[in-house]
């Protein structure tokens, strides 16, 4: 192949002008390739995004943690999310060998107000190890003092979002929040925790010491939503998880609880990821296949319509490889444009569709690289055969095709 022709200005100008001249064909080919490419950009980003999701959730769970959550209930019961764990569960779990610390989660949605603002948000009752076990870090102010867990102080620690909602940009420290006609002084703000997989934010909560919670929010709670355990680093994590599960099974129906570990999160998300990859993979392969089909049809029509042009170029000294290169160049140019348009379409898809699928929006470089590679690949694959055919024609036969 004589590739030096690619450096001739007139050759490249002629390729561009040919594409402009055949505007309709070019636009159709462009559409075809763009749709195929956008689906590839989207799928790569979707897989990347859900991997990121997995990492975030595992981080949220925190290191060396086991999270026991209420389940949806089994057959014959009303299947709804509720508080199905009780203080007996908590005491039993705390005694499992290897469990260092444990805390349970009680919370209630209430009305809260500052001097001039009013919101509905969760208030959490924190027992002594709660902040540690649930991985709350204090960003401003101070944590609860040990004796504050024993008495009934009217103090609270709040999340950054709640602080923003109630106090705007002013510092919330030392200010008061009213809950159920009682004022609580803000003594601390905890560091941003982010969102749950469900999309619910963990940063618009207020935390009260457990006795305060019991006195002012919910005096008679018997059951609660979740228990979290911190595991010692020198014992087998998997063994403890097994024991926790067995213990709970003795006391509950299997549908009453869910034990969440990094392993279960990974397993669940892998299934989700796999399904997503298969589905989106098939869709984008189909899209790419259709693009390739449309493109190769357009290219073979293109070559037929311009047979006489091939003839005259051959008469003027073009070799077979020159003809092939000319049509491949046209295909590559369409493909590059298609990669750009496809990436833009894919970008829009990521921007507007990923939030609907509850996947973090990411724009991975890999997807744009994939776009260019697949685009040029499809372009060349679909243009090569028609171009090769055209190059094989005898110059005279090509010339006569106009008549």
């Amino acid at each position, binding site marked *: 192949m004589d590739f030096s*022709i690619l450096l*001739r200005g*007139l*050759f490249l*100008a*002629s390729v561009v*002008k*040919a594409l*402009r*001249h055949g505007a309709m064909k070019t636009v159709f080919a462009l559409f075809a390739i763009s749709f195929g490419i956008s689906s590839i950009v989207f799928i790569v980003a979707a897989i990347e995004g859900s991997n990121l999701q997995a990492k975030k959730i595992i981080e949220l769970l925190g290191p060396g943690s086991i999270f026991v959550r209420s389940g949806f209930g089994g057959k014959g019961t009303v299947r709804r999310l509720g508080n199905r764990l009780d203080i007996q569960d908590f005491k039993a779990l705390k005694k499992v060998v290897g469990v260092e610390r444990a805390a349970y989660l009680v919370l209630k949605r209430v009305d809260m107000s500052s001097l001039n603002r009013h919101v509905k948000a969760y208030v959490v009752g924190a027992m002594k190890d709660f902040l540690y076990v649930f991985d709350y870090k204090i960003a401003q102010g101070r944590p609860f003092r040990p004796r504050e867990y024993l008495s009934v102080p009217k103090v609270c620690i709040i999340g950054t979002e709640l602080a923003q909602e109630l106090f705007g940009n002013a510092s919330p420290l030392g200010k008061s929040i009213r809950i159920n006609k009682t004022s609580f002084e803000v003594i601390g703000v905890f560091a941003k925790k982010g969102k749950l997989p469900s999309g619910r934010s963990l940063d618009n909560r207020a935390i009260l010491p457990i006795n305060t919670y019991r006195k002012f929010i919910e005096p008679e709670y018997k059951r609660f939503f979740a228990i979290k355990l911190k595991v010692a680093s020198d014992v087998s994590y998997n063994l403890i998880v097994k024991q926790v599960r067995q213990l709970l099974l003795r006391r509950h129906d299997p549908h009453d609880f869910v034990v969440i570990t990094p392993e279960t999160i990974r397993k669940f998300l892998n299934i989700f990821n796999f399904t997503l990859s298969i589905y989106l993979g098939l869709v984008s392969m189909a899209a790419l296949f259709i693009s390739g089909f449309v493109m190769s049809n357009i290219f073979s029509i293109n070559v037929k319509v311009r047979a*006489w*042009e091939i*003839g*005259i*170029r*051959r*008469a*003027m*000294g*073009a*070799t*077979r*490889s*020159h003809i092939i290169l000319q049509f491949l160049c046209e295909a590559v140019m369409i493909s590059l444009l298609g990669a750009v348009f496809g990436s833009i379409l894919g970008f829009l898809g990521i921007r507007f569709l990923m939030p609907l699928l509850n996947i973090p929006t990411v724009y991975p470089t890999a997807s744009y690289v994939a776009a260019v590679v697949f685009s040029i690949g499809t372009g060349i694959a679909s243009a090569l055969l028609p171009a090769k055919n055209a190059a094989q024609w*005898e*110059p*005279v036969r090509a*010339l006569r095709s*106009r*008549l």
Partner: protein
Amino acid sequence: MAIIELRDITKTYRQGELEVKVLKGVNLEVEKGDFLAIMGASGSGKSTLLYIIGCLESPSSGTYRLAGAEVSKLEDDELSRVRNERLGFVFQSFYLIPYLTVEENVLVPTIYSKKRRDYKARARHLLEQVGLGHRVSFLPSELSGGQKQRVAIVRSLINDPDIVLADEPTGQLDSHSSAQVMEILSDLNKQGKTIIVVTHDEQTADYASRRVIMKDGLLYSA
């Protein structure tokens, strides 16, 4: 020595079962600097003969020497090179590429040339010589038939070939444009180019210094 030498050239087209013998043993010698007109009725095989001379198709049998070299032994790429460097073509229906300007059309053969020189200046100079200096950036669709054919002639000359082959160059032109085109070819001949014109038009053939007539696949001197 003759620049073109054809010996017992035959050409048979196969259309399914049917065999059509278009050339039945043609002998022809063309000297350097000749202006030859090949005449004959349509279907007589005169265009086929021209295309064989132009290396656009190969004969079924016989030998063809171009400037002493045996053409039938050349590879496809070498034939392309011969067409590019030694031959210029002018066709009845011009074959200008519609999306390229006059100047770009003229320069197309240089894309495939190994030689590098200031083709742009040469193109402008030649276009001015045929009275199209003011049309360099026009598209073919903006030109008259006569102008198109003059562009095609300039295109055939851009690589400075020894031989210009013209297939019914006046076939789509009025008498005034025909005369203009033939004057140009005549001038080229005076500058030393070998010209071969295929035509069935007497007036066109009158410009040539020598005539041959094709009839039923055989060539006769006039």
